[in-house]
């Protein structure tokens, strides 16, 4: 299974790669912002996208909408540190399958990925 990680923080990108490869055996591709996410999505056709919200140029919500416009079956999970009230609803409205708040535990992340990939959520 292939997962696209979209985050402008290099340390976070690397952390996701390490967790997903080492603990889940997933293949990982990366993008630095919403714009790059769209290009990378077209190229690598991932099974799941892990999307950050606060990014330069095109933010996570906008990017989620754009990817879904391109592929209505895209499975996008938002991962964010922002605790703005109503943000979770905004992400779900934009079409995200799940909303993960930082910090999170490895097992929780893997569990969400499993559920989303099986179409349970």
């Amino acid at each position, binding site marked *: 299974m292939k997962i696209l990680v979209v985050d*402008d923080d290099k340390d976070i990108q690397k952390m996701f790669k390490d*967790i997903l490869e080492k*603990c889940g055996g997933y293949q990982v591709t990366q993008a630095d912002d919403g714009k790059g996410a769209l290009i990378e999505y077209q190229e690598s056709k991932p099974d799941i996208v892990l999307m950050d919200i606060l*990014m330069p140029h095109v933010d996570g919500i906008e990017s989620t909408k754009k990817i879904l416009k391109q592929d209505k079956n895209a499975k996008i999970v938002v991962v964010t540190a922002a605790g703005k009230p109503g943000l979770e609803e905004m992400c779900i409205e934009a079409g995200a399958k799940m909303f993960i708040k930082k910090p999170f535990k490895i097992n929780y992340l893997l569990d969400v990925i499993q559920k989303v990939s099986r179409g349970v959520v």
Partner: protein
Amino acid sequence: MVKGIEKTRGFLENIMESIPSTILVVDKVLGIVYANPHYYRVSRQRPKDVLGKDIREVLPAPTIKRMDLDKKIREAIDTGRSFEVGHAPGDRLGTFYFYRVRPLTDGRGGNVSGAVILVEDVTELTRLEEEVKESYMKSDFISAASHGLRTPLTVISNYLALMQMGKIRDPEEQKETIKTLISQTNHMIDLVDDMLDISRIESKKFSIETKKVSIEKIAKDSVEKVKILADLREHTISLKIPRGLPKINVDEKRINDVFTNLLTNAIRYTPKKGKIIVSITDKGEHIRCTVADTGIGIPKKEQEKIFERFYVSGGRLSKGAPDRVGLGLCIAKGIVEVHGGKIWVESRVGKGSTFYFTLPKNVKEQTEQTTST
């Protein structure tokens, strides 16, 4: 009939007696024609000291002066328009009053014959407002701190878990991981330091240690500090510093923080291969330092807000930089002001921004100074 009138008058008197606010009525020339019982109770004056007297003789002079009350009452009488003026500090320490003034019409032709003045003690309300404001500020603070800590905590806790699970075995990989852990821990330390600075600045307990130093040296040190970051974005930084600048009394570390913050912002908000110029000018009584960039610029309406805490240009938080919560410029302002200087920005969208700050030459040599703001 007479009984009926007396009954009504008694009823009205009872109402006036029980009103817990001051009511004064003045005639066209501001002579007091009526004061309600509450006024006599709180002012401890007697009717003979009040009735027929000019309001300026009866109300405390500072109260009148502070709010231009006499002029405003006269205006209300002349124009027939009401006005309200509030939260004026009273003469007793810690009391606040709210004034409502309505023109008094004679009821027949609607001619204005004076004014009714209602004075309410809003001390408790003002105190509650302050409390609410403070609690909002605290929750603002807590939410920004928690937001800033979430990303480094995610990286640190998950890498520690991976190590505990034995997933990071390769020595090179271990080294890299430790580097990441240190860098994320430093982010948290910076954030906590910034939060402490802000809280000291706001509670006016921010102190500096000054000694005679060369501003040129501080500027050069700061440029050196941000060089790696500037190189990454292929910016050029140049210095324009005249010879023979006098040494002045400042807190070297803190002024370095100001330069570093302005430079980091310039680097961050300037598209790749930009130009950043640091210049220092002797302006007689003070030294003026500027950091100019060829960056994206700041819209006019944001230019004042950027010095407020938690404000990030563009109205949203960005990451990947040390200042993730929008405290840098607020701290810079606090540092400059505690030195007795000023900080401001001139900017045009798409052209770039120039930040200025001044440092007075005559800051007295001292080991500690507290904010005057």
